[in-house]
């Protein structure tokens, strides 16, 4: 009881500083989210789902000050894309491209929400609400309730160019809350690139509804700032024969919690979630994934790799839930940590919960230092120590990067990783 009271008190304090839009089409969803929140409060340290990550920084009324990087190095520059820019959580029209693109309907939540009817009415807050059982995700409900801005993207055919959501942080105290809805209609195909940091602290929710045969690729390099505090949720619902692939690159960051909640509702669909996280020093990074198989012959893959040094903490909580009747499910999960020195920590809870017999599900988890034998081999072939280490770290991360289908994009991610390594060598 006392515990719940503390959680509700934390919520009251947090909400005091926030103003919720009245909402047009989203009004009911926001009210429902407030009601859910009132029930659960904000997470506490004793919640099983927050066993390895202290939610204090995310619960705090104001974010910790986070230095803004003078230059957030651009990525994916060689790619022709439609760029939409958010600065400290506010849409920057001047820096953004024209939203018109064949086969795609894009609107801003802040503008669309003036209307009572919008296609996103059926999606906004819906997947988030469904994702609250069996485990509560209060920050996602908070987001649904109070988000002022976000993108509503509906794609009906093959998108000619990727949509690039580019975040910029200019203020060292900004607290950004963004809520995106993506509807991939039957047979449509879209790539979404999400880059940079939206604020000193950010809370980003993406609800993705993928209809039969639809495809959504999502690549997300989360920016380099050391001070950022970040909580993200992806809620994806997959209809028959659809595909969802999401890759996240996390570099640095004081506190990052990336949750992915994926549900298969149609047969023969595929979902891959992958992540590569590299941290040096004050770095706490948490990947929490929950995949529900409720259809036949679906395939899910979770591939998460973390490189940790100087007291960095890596957390992985992954779960595959196979409901009764979800036969021929193929579920795979791997979480690995490479610890470059003795101060870092890797905390993992890879779970399987299976109620169907004709399935193949497996998970693996390993942690340890760089393989001395491999290092020795490289050095004996004349490769300098630093290069050899970098090679082995990149090789370790390769399995996660391999989840990116577009080779140009994968190459950019690889380059970014090499760059990080070159700047974080030695103590």
């Amino acid at each position, binding site marked *: 009881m006392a515990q719940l009271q503390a959680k509700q008190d934390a919520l009251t304090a947090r909400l005091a500083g926030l103003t919720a839009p009245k909402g047009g089409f989203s009004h009911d969803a926001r009210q429902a989210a407030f009601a859910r929140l009132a029930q659960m409060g904000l997470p506490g340290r004793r919640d099983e789902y927050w066993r390895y990550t202290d939610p204090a920084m995310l619960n705090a009324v104001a974010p910790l000050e986070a230095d803004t990087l003078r230059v957030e190095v651009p990525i994916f520059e060689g790619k022709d894309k439609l760029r939409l820019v958010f600065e400290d959580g506010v849409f920057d029209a001047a820096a953004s491209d024209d939203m018109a693109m064949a086969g795609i309907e894009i609107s801003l939540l802040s503008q669309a929400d003036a209307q009572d009817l919008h296609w996103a009415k059926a999606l906004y807050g819906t997947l988030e609400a469904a994702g609250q059982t069996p485990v509560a995700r209060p920050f996602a409900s908070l987001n649904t309730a109070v988000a002022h801005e976000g993108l509503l993207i509906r794609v009906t055919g093959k998108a000619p160019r990727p949509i690039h959501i580019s975040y910029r942080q200019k203020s060292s105290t900004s607290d950004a809350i963004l809520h995106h809805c993506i509807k991939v209609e039957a047979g449509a195909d879209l790539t979404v690139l999400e880059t940079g940091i939206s604020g000193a602290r950010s809370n980003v929710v993406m609800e993705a509804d993928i209809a039969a045969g639809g495809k959504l690729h999502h690549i997300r390099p989360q920016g380099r700032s050391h001070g950022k505090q970040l909580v993200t949720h992806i809620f994806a619902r997959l209809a028959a024969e659809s595909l969802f692939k999401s890759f996240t690159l996390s570099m640095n960051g004081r506190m990052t919690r990336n949750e992915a909640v994926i549900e298969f509702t149609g047969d023969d669909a595929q979902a891959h979630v992958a992540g590569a996280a590299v941290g040096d020093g004050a770095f706490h990074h948490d990947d929490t994934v929950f995949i529900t198989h409720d259809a036949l012959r679906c395939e899910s893959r979770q591939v998460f790799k973390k490189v940790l040094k100087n007291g960095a903490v890596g957390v992985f909580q992954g779960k595959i839930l196979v409901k009764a009747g979800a036969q021929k499910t193929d579920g795979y999960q791997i979480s690995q940590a490479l*610890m470059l020195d*003795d101060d870092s920590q890797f*905390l993992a809870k*890879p779970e399987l919960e299976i109620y169907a*017999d004709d399935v193949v599900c497996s998970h693996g988890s390993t942690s340890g*230092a760089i393989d001395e034998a491999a290092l020795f081999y490289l050095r004996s072939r004349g490769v300098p120590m630093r290069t050899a280490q970098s090679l082995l770290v990149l090789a370790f991360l390769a399995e996660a990067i391999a989840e990116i289908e577009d080779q140009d994009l994968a190459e950019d991610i690889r380059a970014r990783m090499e760059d990080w390594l070159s700047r974080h060598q030695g103590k």
Partner: protein
Amino acid sequence: MTVMPEIEIEVREGVDRETIETVNAMAGKYKYGWETEIEMEFAPKGVNEDIVRLISAKNEEPEWMLEWRLTAYQRWVEMEEPDWAMLDYPKIDYQDIYYYASPKSMEVKPKSLDEVDPKLLATYAKLGIPLQEQMLLAGVEGADEPRRVAVDAVFDSVSLGTTFQAELMKAGVIFCSISEALREHPELVRKYIGSVVPQSDNYFATLNSAVFSDGSFVYIPPGTRCPMELSTYFRINAENTGQFERTLIICDKGAYVSYLEGCTAPKRDTNQLHAAVVEIVIMEDAEVKYSTVQNWYPGDENGVGGIYNFVTKRADCRGDRAKVMWTQVETGSAITWKYPSCILRGDDSQGEFYSIAIANNAQQADTGTKMIHLGKRTKSRIVSKGISAGRAQNTYRGLVSMHPKAKESRNYTQCDSLLIGDKCGAHTVPYIEVKNNSSRVEHEATTSKVDDDQLFYCRSRGMDEEEAVALVVNGFVKDVLQTLPMEFAMEAQALVAISLEGSVG
């Protein structure tokens, strides 16, 4: 508990049908479900300070022991029953249980097993447990060198007696019931009890600390290899009675002991509670091998009756190079809640956990281990094989923790689950916590059904379907069976066969 309606299990391939039918046919075939009719003495139902005092008085315990129990009781009253396990059972009414039940004939403590009521001895004879010292365990007759096993027989709340005590004493080994140890060796008990599983460790262990009635005590002196295997056989007989036994094993420097534990109970429509605590202290260079074949009454095919088994088992490798090996074959109980753990405190100490957990019909098992690496270069290995059939739920739950100081330590974990039928569940909940980089932790888990290719191969070699399934299942659990002492391995193999394969095996 309500009676579950018969559920039609959907089957896609012939072999599943065979297996499921065999499994169904097994329901109600629990071999040890009979009851010994004997006059019993009960303490009043329920638990309170008076009951705690009564149990302590019955065992003629020293004052400090009573105080210890009362402290535990006071803690327990303030605790809440944990609900994190993937187990679903109606709330236990702790005031509706007898906490002490002893055969009337045991009121005056028999001086030796010869004086024990023949009816009680007959119970063990029927269970196949040799209480005469000249008897050998079934299945090993004709072996070149007959192997002997010393047995402590616990019947409801009391120990009937312990065999081979005199011979063990010659080697300096103390093997007796814990109540006897509290009378004869109070200093040893006082030094070690609660040092591995503290009084208020968890809800069930705390209850046990308050009301444990008997159990076994083992002390192996330095440099001694225990001359024979030690064994405790637990039998629940009386109705509405909980069994709360406490086992304490101390293996001193350089000593070795292999300890076996078995348990059965009569078939009843009501659930019975069993909440035991096992504490093992292992000193420098010592080694303990602890094997369990848990075959409590599992309830019938509709989930009516059966034992609720809530057990806390922990071994503390206190000295360098100490070694512990847990092997468990869990086939019984309606509910199993059990996590035999290893605290690897000494440098270079080793912990191993091998488990076969079979859940059939409406059984639910949530079991696994904890490997706490504290010392340098400590090693642990976990091999868990879970089999679910019927409507059963089987969960592996485990923790591997590498502390910052546990440099160059090593863990390997393998959890495999096999599902038979589409109404059961198999779950894996591992926790991995690594806090240094010189340690290596590897965890692997798989869930699958009986492999079609393997079955096809066996069939193509002329085996019938039942034989093929038996072979595949035996192959699945082989890694664990191999770690059991021979007598137990035979019993366990038979049990695996009986739990899943019926006439096959």
